[in-house]
């Protein structure tokens, strides 16, 4: 049962000669949350896309023994993109149902309908079923998107900045849902996140990206240090331990 998402020597460039990711090696075990941190433009989103649907320029991605290729991979993975183009006119129920697209035929089965409802209830948004997605708040939209990603019961859950536009309560709710799902379904969850304190708190592993390379990786308390934050972000910061939590308190720019 020791499955893991494994990345071997992955490089990617949108334009020849301008690599966005260089020689990435990393693993993300099942049942754990792996947080990818790093400054804007360090390649976090691109890395997630390479794990999801983009073909890397070099290198390979594995789930256990199976290589990332073709339709089979899409069934293993769910991806929650950073930017929503949720201008579509559809209800939350229909929106979440679309996550099952691989199985959907013209007639939607009762089992599929039940699955949608179960996810909506699990996320505590069943009362929004009939609401248009265009009318949702940022937090509700993010939960609905998470539901859409979760409903296909993926082995690998990829979340691109799932909490970036959320208030403190929604942020906690969202991360709690992700954590619970990861544990219950034994998914390998990889997410990008900007808040270092939140990353330290919710993730089992951290991967630090800097200019397309992995700068450090490991358990949060091993990885995070004032030196690393200064090197990667150019910020003087203090790390304060508060019970189980590791707080990062920024000082000034270097």
């Amino acid at each position, binding site marked *: 049962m020791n499955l893991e998402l494994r990345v071997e020597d992955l490089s990617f460039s949108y334009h020849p000669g301008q690599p966005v990711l260089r020689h990435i090696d990393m693993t993300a075990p099942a049942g754990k949350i792996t947080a990818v941190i790093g400054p804007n433009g360090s390649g976090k989103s691109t890395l997630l896309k390479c794990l999801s649907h983009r073909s890397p320029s070099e290198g390979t991605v594995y789930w256990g023994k199976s290589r990332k290729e073709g339709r089979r991979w*899409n069934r293993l993975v769910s991806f929650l*993109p950073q930017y929503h183009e949720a201008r579509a006119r559809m209800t939350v*129920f229909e929106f979440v149902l*679309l996550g099952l697209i691989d199985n959907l035929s013209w007639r939607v089965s009762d089992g599929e309908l*039940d699955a949608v409802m179960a996810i909506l209830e699990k996320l505590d948004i069943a009362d929004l*079923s009939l609401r248009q997605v265009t009318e949702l708040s940022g937090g509700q939209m993010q939960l609905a998107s998470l539901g859409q990603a979760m409903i296909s019961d993926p082995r690998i859950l990829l979340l691109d900045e799932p909490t970036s536009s959320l208030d403190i309560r929604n942020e906690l709710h969202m991360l709690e849902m992700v954590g619970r799902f990861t544990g219950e379904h034994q998914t390998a969850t990889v997410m990008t996140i900007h808040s270092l304190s939140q990353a330290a708190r919710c993730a089992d592993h951290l991967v630090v990206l800097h200019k397309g390379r992995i700068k450090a990786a490991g358990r949060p308390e091993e990885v995070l240090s004032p030196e690393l934050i200064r090197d990667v972000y150019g910020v003087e910061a203090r790390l304060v331990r508060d019970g189980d939590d590791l707080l990062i308190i920024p000082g000034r720019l270097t």
Partner: protein
Amino acid sequence: MTKKKMIGSPSSRAVYRSITGRKKLLLAVLFLVTLLLMVTDIMTGPVPLSLGEVLGALFRPDAAGDRTLFIVLQLRLPVALMAVLAGGALSAAGAEMQTILNNPLASPFTMGISAAAGFGASLAIVFGIGLIPLAGPFLIPLNAFIFSLLTSILVLALSGRKGLTPESMVLAGIAVLFLFQAAMAVLEFFAAEEQLQAIVFWLFGSLSRTTWLRLGITAAVCFLVAPFLAGNSWKLTALRLGDTKARSLGINVRQLRFEILVLISLLTGTIVAFTGTIGFIGLAGPHIARMLSGEDQRYYLPVSVLSGSLILSLASILSKIIIPGTIFPPGVITSFIGVPFLLILLLGPGRRNR
């Protein structure tokens, strides 16, 4: 916890039924109204016919008089059917154009496809130049069809160089639109008086050139294209979630865009070839459908089709009533009907889209 039990799994069906039930009802109503308008269309004309006469000619032709039979079967039924077919097809083309380009302004009209067809037709009218020899009576429609197909390919090729993003496709379409409008101006400059009149008449759009043969060809194309559009329903719905999400769901977005564009060109090319440029339906129909039924393509597409059929049927009726004895161009009327209808839906009460 008790509250959650109340919303147990049986109600998932209830929720879904409340979503789809409304749409099915909507489809039924639109279908009936379109049918009603089609019959009214057959009743209307220089020689008014009663409902009984029309139904008699349609369902008990043995008992009907020769004159009635001729008017209904030879003159008005093909036109009425063409209104339904052309309106539906143009609207469907617009709906899918808006879907694949993720742009509410996209339609066969704004993408330059109609303009290209118009130019092709005018070329045939002014110079008698055909791209296919021995086209005979089909010279004008064939030219229109070929030009609209070539334009789609051109738009694809232009935008393909930049990676086929929706934005580049819309820009390429607009560029093509201006190109053909300029070319039209040149043609009109050189055209003789009667030729100019023929061009203008063609550009207005008209259903009166419909024959059973032309209707048959149009119907064949429509029924050929329909299953391909319907078969991609879920993919097209998912495309509205954005390219990144659609890709992650395993959809080959580029290929889907390309295939759908080819189908749309086929539809538009055929319709424009036989009816001239009937504008606005491809823009208004899909918008009306989106607002009424949402974007689940299993409903969005048929509702778009019926909305378009309804508008053009209504336009066909009005075109015969406005100035009795003459046929006002229905292409002009579609805009006059479509604009207020669209505005009411956009600005009406209870709408907060953005």
